[in-house]
């Protein structure tokens, strides 16, 4: 079993479109939507939700107003201005540090588990889909991501899947680290723009930091062929494995509007390119003497 995480650095590079298509090309896989802040994968992956579960992460103070003497101690101690006169909790500002509860002279505050979102077990034509929705302004997306990956491993045991495919979050922060740590390889989907290039450098730094082998594909490469060439050169220098590029194709938005992965409803240039990219990903992972082993 191999676990592959698809990342992009910058958002909007077509990462989810590519992931959904990869997922449609593998006959037995577990698919994970780890982009929990803006989950889109389910919208282009026909699925049925089998079960949904609350997601708890961190804690939140609960104030027993009956026991409170309004001394104001908690308000002064909170470094995050999460307590207002009353005392009233500003849930958004609260970090769940527990300082208010610890020092309340009346013991009027207790720390309770914080419900931050919902996660789902769903099924698709070629294997399970694990996805989630994080509540507004909720933190702990990293924890939610690791929970989803844990569920995905359980699904692998149940289904004997060959791959876990993770649609990672954008950026290089905590949820990205959570979706990448300990996976077998990363596929980075970037675009040939100055910001795409810049963010790729950041992702490369992160992958080196996490010691994960990286593959690279450039989406809409023909928007700026020179930049695409620069990105390829950069990738080579950083030891990333280039797995082919994807051209601009109007069919991409059309597939999105239909709610389907691109490769299942198109034989256009982008769909053809993605099939080729996936084949190269498989070759790279299978190559025992190739760069994959060397990167380890």
């Amino acid at each position, binding site marked *: 079993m191999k676990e592959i995480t698809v990342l992009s650095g910058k958002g909007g590079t077509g990462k989810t479109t590519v992931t959904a298509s990869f997922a449609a090309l593998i006959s037995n896989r577990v698919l994970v939507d780890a982009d929990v802040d803006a989950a889109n994968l389910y919208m282009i992956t026909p699925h049925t939700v089998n079960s949904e579960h609350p997601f*708890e*992460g*961190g*804690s939140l103070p609960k104030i027993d107003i009956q026991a409170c003497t309004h001394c104001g101690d908690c308000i002064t101690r909170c470094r995050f201005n999460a307590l207002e006169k009353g005392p009233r909790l500003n849930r958004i500002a609260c970090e*769940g540090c527990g300082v208010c509860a610890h020092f309340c002279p009346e013991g009027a505050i207790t720390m309770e588990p914080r419900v931050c979102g919902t996660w789902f077990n769903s099924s698709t034509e070629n294997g399970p889909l694990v996805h989630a929705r994080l509540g507004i302004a909720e933190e*702990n997306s*990293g*924890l939610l*991501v*690791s*929970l989803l990956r*844990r569920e995905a491993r359980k699904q692998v045991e149940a289904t004997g899947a060959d791959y876990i495919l993770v649609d990672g979050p954008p950026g290089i922060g905590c949820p990205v*680290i*959570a979706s990448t*740590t*300990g996976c077998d390889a990363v596929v980075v989907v970037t675009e040939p723009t100055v910001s795409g290039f810049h963010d790729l450098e950041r992702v490369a730094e992160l992958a080196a*930091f*996490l*010691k994960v082998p990286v593959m690279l594909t450039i989406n809409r490469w023909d928007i700026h062929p020179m930049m695409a060439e620069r990105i390829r050169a950069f990738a080579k220098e950083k030891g990333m494995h280039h797995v082919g590029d994807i051209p601009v194709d109007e069919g991409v938005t059309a597939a999105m509007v239909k709610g389907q992965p691109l490769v299942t409803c198109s034989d256009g240039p982008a769909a053809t390119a993605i099939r080729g990219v996936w084949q190269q990903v498989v070759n790279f992972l299978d190559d025992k003497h190739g760069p994959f082993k060397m990167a380890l």
Partner: protein
Amino acid sequence: MKIAVTATAADFDAPMDLRFGRAACFLVVDTETMSWSVVENTQNLNAAQGAGIQAGKTIVETGCTAIITGNCGPKAFRILTGAGIKIVTGAKGSARQAVEQYKAGELQESSEANVEGHWI
């Protein structure tokens, strides 16, 4: 000698757990008699952060001299080695088999953390 192993269930014949901080549970094993007991890790499974650190603390408190696991992050590594506990990786199969491999000298002690971050 008392050693610990991460396991996916509270059973010596359950598959070992490759995670450390978020392991399903720890089994504390007497290597002479092969008798074992369970140390729960449930609160760490869902900890927002710091699971490795808390698990490290738990293991130190059991008084074990070694821990057999799959992946150990740098924070837990610091705590375990700070307390003189050996971190042993590379085992395969059930928790029982892992301990047997250890006794047979088939496993290596790791000299550095092998995963980054606090999520596994």
